């Protein structure tokens, strides 16, 4: 089955968008929670939920720095997350190729 071959952690629109957005940054970079929310267009609650799932899978890390108004939560894609996205796109490409007639 197609859905079993694709990584179920990433194979959800919101999480796919989060992982792809974070993968657009060079390795070693992170994105603030508020900017990620701005780019993805999710509510804070939704974003937290999806980030927790990605964190549980080891695909992202979240780190809170500072306190009060200067507090910043940094979200970064891990090497495992980057590799998972690579695998996901490879499988997806294979599925699309196999579905193409001819």
């Amino acid at each position: 089955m197609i859905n079993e071959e694709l990584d179920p952690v990433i194979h959800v629109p919101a999480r796919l968008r989060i992982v792809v957005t974070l993968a657009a940054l060079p390795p070693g970079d992170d994105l603030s929670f508020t900017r990620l929310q701005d780019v993805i267009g999710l509510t804070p609650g939704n974003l937290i939920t999806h980030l927790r799932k990605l964190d549980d899978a080891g695909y992202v890390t979240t780190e809170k720095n500072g306190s009060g108004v200067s507090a910043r939560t940094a979200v970064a894609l891990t090497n495992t997350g980057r590799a998972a996205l690579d695998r996901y796109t490879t499988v997806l490409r294979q599925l699309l190729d196999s579905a193409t007639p001819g």
Partner: protein
Amino acid sequence: MNEESGTTGGTDMDESPVLDPQGAAAVLQQARDRARRELAVRRPVLFLIWAVVVFVGYGAMWLSVRGQHPYRGPAWEALLLAFLLFVAAAGASANVVDRAASGVGGRSELQRGIFALALLAGFAALEIEKQALATAGASRPVTALFGQAIPLLVAGLVLLASCATASRLDWPRLAIGGWLLAVAAGGAWAGVVASLAVYALAGGVGIALMAAIEPQLRRS
């Protein structure tokens, strides 16, 4: 698989249990395009800004010194124009970079700081060197020839050196850095007056050309 399991309080509105490969490919592409649009610095805009500065700044200085016998140096109006253009371009560049880099932290943030510091240190060091040349007895045309190449020399060297820290080969940066160094070094052989015209044309047009071909080069 039920993606709703494990979510909190029913707030998870974007869980889609069924996403076919075509749908997933579309989401992936849209997310990539959006991330590129939002998070990538619009370098063609930066190149265009600096192409104008180089072309107009050096061009104005050349217009004010051509035909001078003996050489006295650019008119203050031309120097003021170049300075104001430089300040305006620096502000506009910071704006373009901040727009993309807002919220981005980590290695890139550190690299941007070092890049700016390297530019400032390079300018300062070579300006001090120019004063040393004058103190050691170098004539006004000689110190002017050296001084007017400083912006291109520093920018070219820092751009080239910054390629070493990039996560992958950055052809546009490599090309423009090398070009600016070649223009600075080669243009000096045209003499103290004509070098300004060479810098304006070869430098300004070269950077503008890079603005046009940067997207293709970046993809290669």
